[in-house]
């Protein structure tokens, strides 16, 4: 009935026992057994919009590049300009194949002049690590896949800054509170329990990044410290409404925020241009990079399909894989993600459609299990958090 059947060979994160103790429903995702929800998808979604949610993202891949040639190696390997990222800042990027199709979307953190952290999706982490290793050959750079040794915990929501700032002291308080979006800094977290003695501390890389459309932080910590960090954050945030949140809430949050999910909006048949993410491709950067020739050609040729946002006018939401129909009832594209939006109260979806039907306000329909449901093209994102 649902996709919650756990595959026995799925890997477990260092927080697996925490999830089961919290009563989580688990699901296989990207080769990992992950929490789908703890109690309620909707409550977890709303907690992130209104207070805070705590996510285990330890399934994601962490690959480090170090050396005098690390920046040049990444400029060659990725479509973006890693060498243009300032130390302490981060950039959303992609790794493409020679044909310009997307192998994965990534966040690249520059943590020192000659040191970068590349964060890859769980299901693509092994491929990204091996591609980075191959593409860095000939550059003065060492590639190290630290995915297994690294846990990643995210605190997302309007209360996130107070919660994370409460775990640090001294100059780290300003580092956290003053941290800009898509920036990172090494900080010392004060933690209790979970195998770390009271008064213990954990060295973490804290980044102001996320996948929910809210303010928030992602904390990279050693796998052996994950339980202590998790429990400390839960205890610190419970009083202000923080709840543990699963992949179901993460998916509905990112969809409202119009963020692509690899395997849905992005895959090996898609270039960044079709996905509306051509801005991440830096054809102007110095030197050649993998996929450049194909992407340069694609940029100047009209795409066969483009990614759009769809607002459902009825109640039945479109789901991934459903056909999008044009005015005459003929198929003009397909839905990549769709759900009833918990925040907005109406169905939303992302879909690829032919360019002539992609203008805002275009009336289309989606075939929802045998019945055409009316939708209208709307700008992405569906939801933007209130700015203070």
């Amino acid at each position: 009935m649902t996709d919650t059947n756990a595959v026995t060979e799925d890997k477990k994160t260092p927080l697996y026992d925490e999830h089961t103790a919290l009563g989580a429903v688990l699901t296989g995702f990207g080769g990992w057994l992950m929490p789908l929800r703890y109690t309620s998808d909707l409550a977890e979604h709303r907690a992130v919009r209104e207070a805070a949610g705590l996510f285990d993202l330890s399934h994601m891949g962490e690959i480090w590049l170090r050396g005098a040639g690390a920046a040049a190696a990444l400029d060659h390997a990725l479509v973006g300009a890693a060498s243009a990222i300032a130390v302490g800042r981060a950039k959303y990027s992609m790794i493409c194949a020679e044909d310009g199709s997307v192998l994965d979307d990534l966040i690249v953190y520059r943590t020192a002049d000659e040191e970068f952290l590349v964060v890859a999706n769980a299901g693509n982490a092994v491929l990204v690590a091996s591609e980075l290793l191959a593409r860095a050959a000939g550059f003065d750079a060492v590639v190290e896949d630290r995915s297994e040794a690294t846990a990643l915990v995210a605190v997302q929501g309007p209360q996130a800054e107070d919660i994370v700032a409460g775990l640090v002291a001294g100059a780290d308080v300003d580092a956290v509170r003053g941290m800009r979006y898509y920036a990172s800094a090494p900080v010392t977290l004060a933690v209790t329990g979970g195998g770390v003695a009271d008064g213990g501390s954990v060295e973490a890389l804290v980044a102001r990044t996320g996948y929910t459309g809210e303010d928030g932080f992602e904390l990279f910590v050693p796998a052996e410290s994950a339980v202590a960090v998790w429990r400390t954050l839960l205890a610190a945030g419970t009083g202000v409404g923080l709840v543990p949140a699963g992949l179901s809430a993460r998916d509905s949050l990112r969809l409202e925020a119009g963020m692509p999910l690899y395997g849905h909006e992005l895959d090996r048949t898609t270039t960044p241009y079709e996905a509306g993410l051509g801005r991440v491709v830096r054809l102007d950067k110095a030197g050649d990079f993998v996929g450049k020739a194909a992407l340069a050609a694609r940029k100047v040729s009209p795409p066969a399909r483009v990614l759009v946002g769809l607002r459902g006018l009825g109640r039945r939401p479109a789901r991934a894989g459903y056909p999008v129909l044009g005015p005459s009832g003929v198929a003009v594209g397909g839905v990549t993600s769709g759900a009833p939006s918990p925040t907005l109260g109406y169905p939303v979806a992302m879909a690829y459609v032919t360019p002539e039907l992609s203008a805002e306000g275009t009336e289309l329909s989606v075939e929802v299990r045998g019945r055409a449901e009316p939708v209208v093209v709307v700008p992405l994102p569906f939801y933007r958090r209130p700015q203070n």
Partner: protein
Amino acid sequence: MADFPAALRYTIEHEWVDTSTPAVVGVTSVAADALGDVVYLELPEVGSTIEAGTVIGEIESTKSVSELFSPVSGTVVEVNQAAVDDPALVNADPFGAGWLFKVDVSGEGALLSAEEYAAHTGS
């Protein structure tokens, strides 16, 4: 989990039906838990004729959607408007306030006892 009301009978698709006249139909706690928070119900219209074992509606959550199969044949005489208006009732009380519709029964599909259903769901 294994505590399914003994007075009800069940389908392998996780619907239940009681023995009253008209009969009350709903979905089980197994279905509700698997779906997550139910946000939309599409139920058969009052007066419509339904056939056991066929799809007669939909139950939609944030994460997924499930088809609703009728455990019995007959004529729909009432739908639970409270559950249509507040589908969270299906999660909160699937065997009670979260019932879905009532049927004048003319025939039955393949139904399981509570014990058989528990064995089927492995709970």
